[in-house]
């Protein structure tokens, strides 16, 4: 298993000038050996480009890739000894499951019985021992993805397993089981695993550390809690959590934060640089409070949605919208009512030109 260090950038054109020329802006990052990482971001944010640079399918236009201190920037995927599971199942149609799994070892001239034993072990781990002699082409999409994964795990010395949105074509009901299987395998084999996806549920479930990316830049690397509690960038605040973080435009006053014509008193010990600021508060932390409570704003109810497990309130204040997640039995309210919602609290974050300041 390998410790992967990246210090690189990747540009479309030979001599990039401004940010838009870069598929991947300069980044420096380390993936610890045995760690479970996720590259999370919308389509076209550069996450797959980064994965292909790590797997060796793509050479970065500048910088280096190191596996356990060895420079592999120019090395092929085979030399880097990585495994990759693609968006759609990639298997050898004319082979049986066992032949598919044993194929990498056969290419390395590993003796037959050793292949047989190793394939048996991995099939056991993937709960596919029953289908070993079936033709791989006739299996379901999720079983085929397990075979793809198995082709990597069969190699005892595989350096890292890379996933490129592996659940895209899987039936929604089965996604849950395949996700759990990958997590169990990571727990058992302690392999370095890097998972690319646009779906925050998959990223936050699978990975210990999540790299949130947008427009070729890694805006924040952190655990699910850090991304949820202290998003370092407004993009991360909005991207993580469903619905994402509310942002209220305001300006800093000595006695408190002025939003439109109301001033919210600071909490004790809070101090902020002067000027325009965005107050970030997650719908989960917006609380329904009594009138005139400090840190709360009188808001007009725009929409109340019964989302089964909870109620999603959409309220407006001076042209700005705030969503609040209230428990099902919260006080009944109708469109147009005025409710007091606490927005300034322990869980609030403050942003100036999109970066967190407090």
């Amino acid at each position, binding site marked *: 298993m390998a410790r992967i260090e990246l210090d690189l950038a990747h540009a479309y054109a030979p001599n990039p000038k401004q940010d838009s020329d870069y598929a991947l802006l300069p980044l420096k990052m380390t993936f610890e050996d045995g760690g479970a990482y996720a590259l999370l971001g*919308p*389509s076209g944010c550069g996450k797959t480009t980064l994965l292909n640079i790590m797997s060796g399918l793509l050479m970065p236009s500048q910088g280096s890739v190191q596996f356990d201190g060895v420079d592999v920037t120019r090395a092929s995927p085979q030399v880097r000894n990585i495994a990759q599971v693609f968006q759609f199942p990639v298997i050898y149609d004319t082979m049986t499951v066992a032949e598919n799994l044993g194929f990498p070892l056969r290419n390395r001239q590993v003796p037959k019985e050793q292949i047989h034993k190793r394939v048996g072990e991995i099939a056991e781990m993937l709960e596919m021992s029953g289908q070993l002699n079936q033709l791989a082409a006739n299996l379901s999409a999720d079983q085929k993805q397990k075979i793809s994964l198995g082709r990597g795990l069969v190699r005892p010395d595989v350096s890292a397993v890379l996933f490129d949105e592996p659940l895209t074509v899987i039936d*929604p009901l089965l996604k849950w089981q395949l996700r*759990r299987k990958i997590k169990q395998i990571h727990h058992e084999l302690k392999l370095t695993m890097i998972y690319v996806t646009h779906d925050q*549920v998959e990223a936050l*479930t699978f990975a210990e550390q999540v790299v949130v990316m947008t427009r070729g830049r890694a805006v924040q690397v952190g655990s699910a809690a850090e991304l949820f509690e202290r998003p370092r960038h407004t993009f991360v605040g909005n991207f993580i959590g469903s619905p994402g973080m509310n942002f209220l435009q305001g300006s800093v006053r000595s006695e408190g934060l002025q939003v439109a014509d109301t001033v919210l008193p600071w909490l004790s010990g809070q101090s902020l640089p002067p000027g325009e600021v965005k107050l970030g508060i997650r*719908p989960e932390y917006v609380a329904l409070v009594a009138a005139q409570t400090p840190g709360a704003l009188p808001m007009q109810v725009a929409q109340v*949605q*019964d989302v089964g497990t909870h109620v999603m309130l959409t309220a407006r204040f001076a042209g700005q919208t705030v969503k609040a997640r209230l428990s099902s039995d919260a006080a009944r309210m109708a469109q147009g009512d005025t409710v007091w919602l606490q927005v300034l609290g322990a869980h609030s974050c403050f942003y100036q030109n999109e970066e967190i300041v407090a």
Partner: protein
Amino acid sequence: MHLTLEGIDKMVGSQTWLYPMSLQPCSGAVTVLLGATQAGKTSLMRIMAGLDVPSHGAVQVNGHSVVGVPVRKRNVAMVYQQFINYPSFTVRDNIASPLKLGGEKNVVQRVNALAEKLHIEMFLDRYPAELSGGQQQRVALARALAKGAPLMLLDEPLVNLDYKLREELRDELSALFAEGNSTVIYATTEPGEALLLGGYTAVLDQGELLQYGPTAEVFHKPQSLRVARAFSDPPMNLLAADAVASGVQLEGGPLLAVHLPETASRKLTVGVRASALHVTAQEGDVVLPGKVELAEISGSDTFVHVATLVGEVVAQLTGVHYFELGAQVTLYLNPAQAYVFDDQGLLLLAPVRGGGR
């Protein structure tokens, strides 16, 4: 526009795709067809649109039958799962095509207004192939809205889009549906999407229509076990139980002091939604100690899989919580929050709305 389906079904060769069902989607509102893949959503929708003809039964619009009426004359609009646009037309011509065919006058203004509403006004002169998946679907939506048909059908329109884009487009869609007055039929596999879109929900499972009613009501009062199972994500915890004098005795677990109707069968199934299980005790709660199997964080919630004495259950906790695999954890359940189904899978007891924590 009143659409009525009377005893329709659909057989293809030896397979039955749709069992006999009748449905009157509430006119002018959003009806969500909720069901897993292969549940029959697309077949039902194609019959409503007139693209397919039912094997039996009647399809009526405002009282007179439309079975066999070519879809051209049906004045419907449809959005497919895989962003269908005319590849050889620019975005502008794509949106304008139903208007031109309908002989509308101010086509240009209508097209520009729609493009602005769906944030694709800058792509009007590009070809669909040059756009991203999300933008292509917006073009398809604009063309469907351009028609202003009294019946608008959307077949899982967001499933191929990015997670965050799906959220964004869903809010826009519910706003667009609220603005218009056409009857909207929206197919999806995600219960969350049905709840967010509101309106009415028809739950389909293996070609059968199980229940139709206002979305919140179908969610909180599922008529049967199959409806409850179809309408919960993550899957509802189903625990075997027996009817006893003082309530419902979970096999291998605590007793739920609830009042059962006399007609209840001895063998029961207790349904507990993941959100009904908490890690903080409230008075009157039943205790379920167990070992953590897996913790899944989905941004706003954490789903904890716990092996307890009544079997493996999933609890949904708000926010981000960390659990070591194998750690001990105690779950608390308010008996009033449990669903009880009899041995036929029919609902006996449903949680009292607003009684939960």
